[in-house]
């Protein structure tokens, strides 16, 4: 879109990562016709794969020995306002760029035969959404960040509202208005920072901007309003179960795997480094809210009768782990939180895909409508059990690594907090495994279950990819932690220095 100044000799990989999916989405929208869905689907898959391929160089060319921003692109965008088109990734954000592009492929595959009405609009919405979310993770300019952050609402609103379930209108509005409320306050905080920094939207400049304690508190709460809603933290989490239940499978996958991470990423990139003193003084509050999310929401998940709702609540509980890890300010905690974010991206996405597989066959998500699925769908149940185990945080799956690191960090911070956080492992096992037991095992519950067809090759492919990712990350998390380690250390170092 714009020529870069600093990286003018190299390929602008970040710009490509953002705009390749958006352009592909527009092409799908323009060329796709509803009477020829096959073409649209192939085109979308092709676009999603290309979009993923252009993010690979970000990992291959990444220098994990420095905490500085890499692949930086910077050029003036709005001169009157000193807004720059400024992109860059560090060891924290690079993962989310890759994860987003990866999940988009899965989403396209997941919607393959399931979505039959307005296919081109569906696929285009996801491709455009993917580019916008990558933009959030790559933006180093406050206004650019905000534009991407808020623009993601529009496609998601359409996705939930058009292809969603019976109560989709309510869910779409709730999702939109909740998140908009938080982000509008953030906008005011951004403008405050713009004035305080003498007219700069540069996030890295804001990191070093000295601020008094009162403005810090105000900014912290403005950020909290946006990011807590997005994460979501208790008590502003109520939009998530509604959105998840009503959204189509692809929508739930993107929501859980990536959109929630936008909030946690906001804490990492903005709240902690810009207002470190307020973050430190308010850490007690955040830890308390996180523990409530972990324990209380874990209990709420236990009694759900709708599978999607159950996974939605388990998402909130897992994100509670993330916010807990971020606000205990030690390496294990923060790295654990980031690993947990990536892992949850895979696991929750896989769980929603599994539920989608069942829903496509039975058109119900009630746990009570199932039972003994293993008799007719053995392949499916293999995956289902694996992902549920990962959801429960079983060792050798990705779910374990993050939770374990956060608990370690929490114990180091305060034993009792660690102990309370660890109950999540028990609760997680309880709600995940109990659901598996009720859905998959036992005798076939009814004729519908007896007539079920096992996975198609498309579904098998999609779930295998997820399974490989989950197991690989569980057994060998080193590549992930290696890349982020220096950046996390630098962040903690920065946060520990008071700005007062």
């Amino acid at each position, binding site marked *: 879109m714009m020529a870069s100044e600093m990286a003018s000799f190299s390929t602008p990989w970040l710009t490509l990562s953002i705009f390749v999916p958006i352009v592909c989405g527009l092409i799908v929208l323009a060329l796709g016709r509803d009477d020829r869905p096959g073409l649209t689907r192939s085109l979308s898959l092709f676009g999603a794969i290309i979009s993923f391929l252009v993010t690979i160089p970000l990992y291959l060319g990444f220098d994990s020995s420095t905490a500085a921003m890499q692949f930086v692109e910077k050029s003036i*965008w*709005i*001169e*009157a*306002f000193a807004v720059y088109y400024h992109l860059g990734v560090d060891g924290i954000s690079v993962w989310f760029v890759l994860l987003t592009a990866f999940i988009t492929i899965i989403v396209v595959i997941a919607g393959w035969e399931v979505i039959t009405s*307005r296919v081109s*609009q569906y696929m285009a919405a996801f491709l455009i959404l993917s580019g916008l979310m990558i933009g959030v993770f790559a933006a180093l300019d406050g*206004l650019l960040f*905000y*534009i991407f952050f*808020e*623009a993601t*609402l*529009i496609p998601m*609103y*359409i996705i939930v*509202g*058009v292809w969603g379930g019976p109560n*989709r*209108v309510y869910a*779409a*509005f709730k999702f*939109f*208005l909740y998140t*908009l*409320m938080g982000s*509008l*306050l953030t*906008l*005011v905080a951004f*403008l*405050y920072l*713009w*004035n305080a920094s003498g007219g700069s939207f540069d996030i890295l400049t804001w990191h070093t901007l000295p601020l008094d304690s009162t403005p810090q508190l105000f900014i912290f709460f403005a950020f909290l309003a946006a990011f807590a809603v997005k994460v979501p933290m208790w008590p502003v989490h109520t939009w998530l179960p509604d959105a998840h239940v009503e959204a189509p499978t692809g929508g739930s996958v993107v929501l859980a795997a990536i959109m929630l991470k936008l909030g946690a990423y906001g804490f990492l990139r903005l709240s902690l480094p810009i207002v470190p003193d307020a973050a430190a003084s308010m850490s007690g509050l955040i830890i308390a809210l996180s523990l409530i999310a972990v324990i209380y929401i874990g209990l709420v998940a236990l009694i759900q009768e709708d599978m999607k709702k159950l996974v939605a609540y388990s998402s909130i509980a897992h994100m509670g782990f993330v916010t807990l890890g971020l606000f205990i300010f030690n390496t294990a905690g923060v790295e654990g939180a980031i690993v947990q974010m990536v892992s949850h991206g895979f696991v929750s996405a896989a769980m929603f895909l599994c539920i989608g597989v069942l829903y496509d066959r039975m058109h119900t998500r009630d746990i009570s409508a199932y039972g003994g699925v293993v008799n007719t769908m053995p392949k499916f149940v293999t995956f289902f059990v694996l992902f549920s185990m990962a959801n429960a945080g079983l060792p050798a799956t990705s779910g374990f690594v993050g939770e374990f690191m956060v608990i370690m960090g929490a114990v180091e911070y305060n034993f009792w907090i660690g102990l309370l956080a660890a109950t999540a492992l028990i609760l997680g096992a309880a709600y995940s495994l109990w659901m598996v037991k009720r859905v998959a095992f036992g005798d076939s519950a009814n004729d519908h279950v007896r007539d079920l067809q096992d996975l198609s090759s498309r579904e098998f492919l999609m779930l295998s990819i997820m399974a490989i990712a989950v197991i690989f990350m569980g057994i060998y998390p080193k590549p992930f932690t290696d890349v982020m380690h220096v950046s996390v250390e630098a962040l903690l170092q920065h946060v520990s220095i008071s700005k007062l």
Partner: protein
Amino acid sequence: MMQSQFDFALAAPEIILLVLGLVILVLDALSQSPRRTLAYGLSLLTLGLLTAVSVWQLGAGMVGETFSGLYVADPFAHVLKIASYIAVALTLVYGREYIQSRDMLRGGEFYVLVLFALLGQMVMISAGNFLTIYLGLELMSLALYALVAMRRDHAQSTEAAMKYFVLGSLASGFMLYGMSMMYGATGNLDLKNIADAVSSGQIDFLPLAFGVVFLVAGLAFKLGAVPFHMWVPDVYQGAPTAVTLVLAAAPKLAVFAITVRMLVVGFGELAVHWQPMLMILGVLSLAIGNLTAIMQTNFKRMLAYSTISHMGFVILGLASGALDGDIQANTSAYGSALFYILTYVLTTLASFGLVMYLSREGFECENIDDLKGLNRRSPWLAVMMLILMCSLAGLPPLVGFDAKLLILQALLQSDRLWLAVVAVMFSLIGAFYYLRVIKVVYFDDSVEPVTPVPAMGVVSNGLMLINGSLVLVLGLMPGPLMALCLQVMHATLSY
């Protein structure tokens, strides 16, 4: 700076429009064509010519006063005039089929009245004196009253015309009263001389204060700010949509111009008194506009309330100038208001244009529910509606967001954090009803029978597409327009 006492070249656009307007009136009277193609074509040609003249004037840096300061030509005026020409031209193109199918061309005055309303607006935009302001205002208003009443046999239109006329006259009365107070206090009608007189500190404060109050009230009437907004929904709803668009677009620019000229240029010294008034008007407009819009089922009425809330934003921008007359701060405050109103007019044009598109012979697209299932009938019009509604709601990356951002920035710059928070909270409420339109367009299925969207001419289709895309493109690339707004504001303030 004064080039000569009577520099006609400066006022060339007005003179050209007056002459050509009369020519069109005569030619049209002779023409018997039911489609009035001649008047239509000539009107568009006139607008094209005017645009060329004003662009040339802007480019050649033709700046100055003429007719003893009655008439001011500055970059601010040129830019607003160019925007008005474009707005009027788009109105004519979008409304072409609509007015024809509603038998509003029988008398043929439609085009001439629109042109004379434009002439009034241009006089307002270039006014440097209370007399020219009032002259322009009345010329514009009289033409608009007649336009609203165009469908004589239509009860709603007649009612709207009556309301518009009575309340409009009341507002003009307010203005006139305020002007007379000002004249009484300062002995001057010229805005620059008034400014000098006020800053001399020799003026009795009481008549001055009264004058400002009446003028602000009159302006608020014309802008449609709460609590002087009662006419807006009724007139917007009652007038034929083509006329609604005539009212909703270009006149806002003219009223904005006289607001800036009077309050900023004329009584800049009194800002400490009129700023609080504007703040109250602005916040009330945001509150009432947004809250009431939620309850509307009629699309035009909803857009009317949305206009009220947008005027609230513009007024907040006007209220956030610096009290000490610091040019830099004032430039950014008033420049942001200018950017807001220009982009708002652009978005409004496309919104009402769409409404006219969806109306057919014998069918008015009036209610929000009439938009049901638009996505199925015409995905491109649906995308357009999505872009427009998101822009009005102030969502990035559309131009409505950039405009709101500028206003918020102006508010923070003048240390009015709480006003900024109030403004964003009301935009949140506002987002709801724009989202509802998107919901109707995308989520709902159309009520049977599905009526295809009528085919429109290539020209209007193309313009519509450009208009809608501009909302997106300007949202992504607001830099040049922002710079232009700041630049012309700076020129006017430091003149």
